[in-house]
């Protein structure tokens, strides 16, 4: 077999071969392996991903999509673990979509830990928030949208981050620069807007991607309540996509990144088996100030599946007072229902089925996720989406401006995805 160029199938073959070899060489017992003191570590995971779509794309894109990915994590600590360096590069090579073939430094940062403070310098990932179906307050990192439309994959963001721990809570200060533009699928990719998104983004700030953004967040535990309040001032991570004519005369969407001031709140109260959750923001926005919230609960039921399994019920309502003018979300008045099963078996089998339903327009998304380990070093992840409920667009009306079928372009993109990952 010869491999020419970075074809995913060649990488896939190499991955499977490597997995087979290392499986064969696996020691029969791990009794003699002691946990490391974690002064330094090097981990690698390799993934093979296959997607099958229910229909070909609007522009005839392929019904199948295969890709391979690799993520390395190098960590080194010194000075009694008070100083450390973390480096996490990631790469995906996609067989169909050139824009989805991409490299990113997920993390490359130096840390110094004091008695009651942490200082981090470099590219890093930061998550804020409590809800499950939408992450309103999570504004520090840009979304790596080509990875997954759920928005949970993020690009590394260069920053200086100081965190102080006090009796009255944890206070985080961020200085951010080196803005990362959102990734979008290319013309051969799936799960994309009907028009291609141009690479040449525009910024409201004259400093462009080198504007220095700032954020501060305070979080505190008050009895059963966990509270976070933040303010972010900087270039919006969500772009406005403006229809334009491209250089070759074709219609394109050009990303425009406005400067925003956003204040937000995230709160969670745990009472028995119930977790009540709220995320809310008020943002200066693109065309005037707006507010949005996501509120709901998660209820845990234990021992419902043959005595060993757990069942979680998640209900969230998502609201955005811009209604259909909300350019950065499809969820402006939507109800989300989800169930999460956890088998509590040795393979950590779990599954999540969710429905997000627009109570005004009846558009819906069905979301399916399942995972389990295969032995000690492999995992299998199954993911799927079904989009429906949109009306067919009126002739001559772009779907993005018709409130009843904003999700219509996605209705050909129902998919099922299998991902096999080998951990080294």
């Amino acid at each position: 077999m010869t491999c020419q160029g970075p074809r995913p199938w060649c990488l896939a073959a190499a991955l499977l071969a490597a997995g087979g070899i290392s499986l064969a060489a696996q020691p029969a017992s791990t009794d003699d392996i002691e946990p490391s003191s974690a002064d330094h570590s090097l981990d690698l995971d390799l993934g093979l991903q296959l997607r099958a779509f229910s229909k070909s794309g609007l522009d005839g894109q392929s019904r199948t999509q295969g890709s391979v990915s690799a993520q390395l994590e190098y960590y080194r600590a010194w000075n009694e673990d008070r100083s450390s360096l973390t480096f996490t590069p990631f790469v995906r090579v996609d067989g169909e979509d050139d824009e989805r073939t991409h490299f990113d430094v997920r993390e490359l940062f130096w840390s110094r830990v004091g008695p009651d403070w942490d200082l981090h310098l470099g590219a890093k990932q930061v998550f804020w928030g409590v809800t499950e179906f939408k992450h309103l307050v999570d504004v520090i990192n840009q979304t790596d949208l080509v990875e997954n439309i759920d928005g949970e994959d993020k690009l590394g963001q260069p920053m200086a981050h100081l965190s102080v721990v006090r009796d009255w809570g944890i206070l985080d200060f961020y200085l951010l620069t080196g803005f990362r533009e959102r990734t979008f699928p290319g013309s051969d990719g799936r799960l994309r807007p009907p028009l291609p998104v141009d690479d040449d983004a525009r910024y409201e700030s004259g400093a462009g991607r080198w504007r220095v953004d700032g954020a501060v967040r305070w979080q505190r535990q008050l009895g059963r309540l966990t509270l976070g309040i933040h303010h972010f001032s900087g270039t919006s991570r969500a772009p406005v996509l403006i229809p334009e004519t491209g250089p070759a005369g074709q219609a394109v969407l050009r990303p425009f990144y406005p400067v925003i001031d956003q204040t937000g709140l995230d709160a969670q109260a745990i009472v028995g088996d119930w977790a009540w959750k709220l995320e809310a923001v008020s943002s200066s926005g693109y065309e005037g100030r707006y507010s949005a919230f996501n509120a709901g609960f998660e209820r845990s039921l234990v021992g419902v599946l043959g005595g060993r399994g757990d069942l979680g019920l998640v209900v969230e309502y998502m609201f955005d007072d811009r209604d259909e003018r909300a350019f950065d979300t499809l969820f402006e008045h939507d109800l989300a229902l989800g169930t999460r099963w956890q088998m509590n078996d040795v393979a950590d089998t779990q599954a999540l089925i969710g429905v997000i339903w627009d109570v005004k327009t009846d558009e819906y998304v069905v979301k399916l996720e399942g995972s389990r380990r295969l032995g000690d070093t492999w995992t299998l992840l199954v993911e799927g989406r079904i989009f429906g409920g949109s009306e067919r667009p009126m002739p001559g009306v772009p779907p993005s401006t018709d409130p009843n079928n904003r999700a219509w372009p996605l209705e050909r993109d129902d998919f099922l995805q299998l991902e096999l990952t080998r951990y080294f």
Partner: protein
Amino acid sequence: MSRPIIVCLVILILLPWGLRSAAAVDLRLDGLTAEQSGRAIFEAADQLEDGYADMQVDLEMILRGRGGSEVHRQLRIKQLEVPEDGDKLLVVFDTPKPIKGTALLSVTHKRAPDDQWLYLPAMKRVKKIASQNKSGPFLSSEFAYEDLTVQEIEKFSYRFLGQGQANGIDCFVVERTPRDDFSGYSRQQVWIDQDELRVLRIEYFDRRDSLLKTLTIDQYARYEDQFWKAGRMYMTNHQTDRSTELFWRNYRFRTGLMDERDFSTNSLLRVR
């Protein structure tokens, strides 16, 4: 693997602490009722645990199924003594590799529900979690969360049954009945050695009062001239024929762990 892991870990870690040296404890059972004697034995054992400041230990968990299948998990544990409230616990998973870096922070409280946070490294997300149903399996093992959690004196009522032997060692045998309606047990029978007040054996009876599980604890060693810590725990489920073995290794005491630095949610974000 989120909730089970978290709650259970906390419990696992705190279990061996229930057992301390009798040397410093004046235990007198004369003139006490069976109920008072049972409680006095546990109170004496409880006192022996005070003053450890902080501890670190490595844990290997071996799950054995009916068909002879074996699954190994490696964990690292840090624990901080909080005299005026419950202790704090940080548990980090090293293997299996797909869950490496997952971590659990548990802040126990004497009089309020415990706080627990789970760190999910893939999303860099710290998630506060609801208290697990205490009778559920911990990390798909034969240990329930409640087997591993802090065994506060007030959570049971006691009855001294008499003398007996476990592992050839003379023991007090005490029956304790969970006061919590959500416990999976009707009662437990506990063997505590008479010299050092270490728990050597526990039999668990299910809600129908039939024998469910037996826990044996051995390979005790004494640290800092004071703390008896178990090296091995073996739990057999008589109703499923499955078993879980825990090996506790590399105990370290008074290592200089600090509350804000090592046991805040920030410390979860730093776990490697």
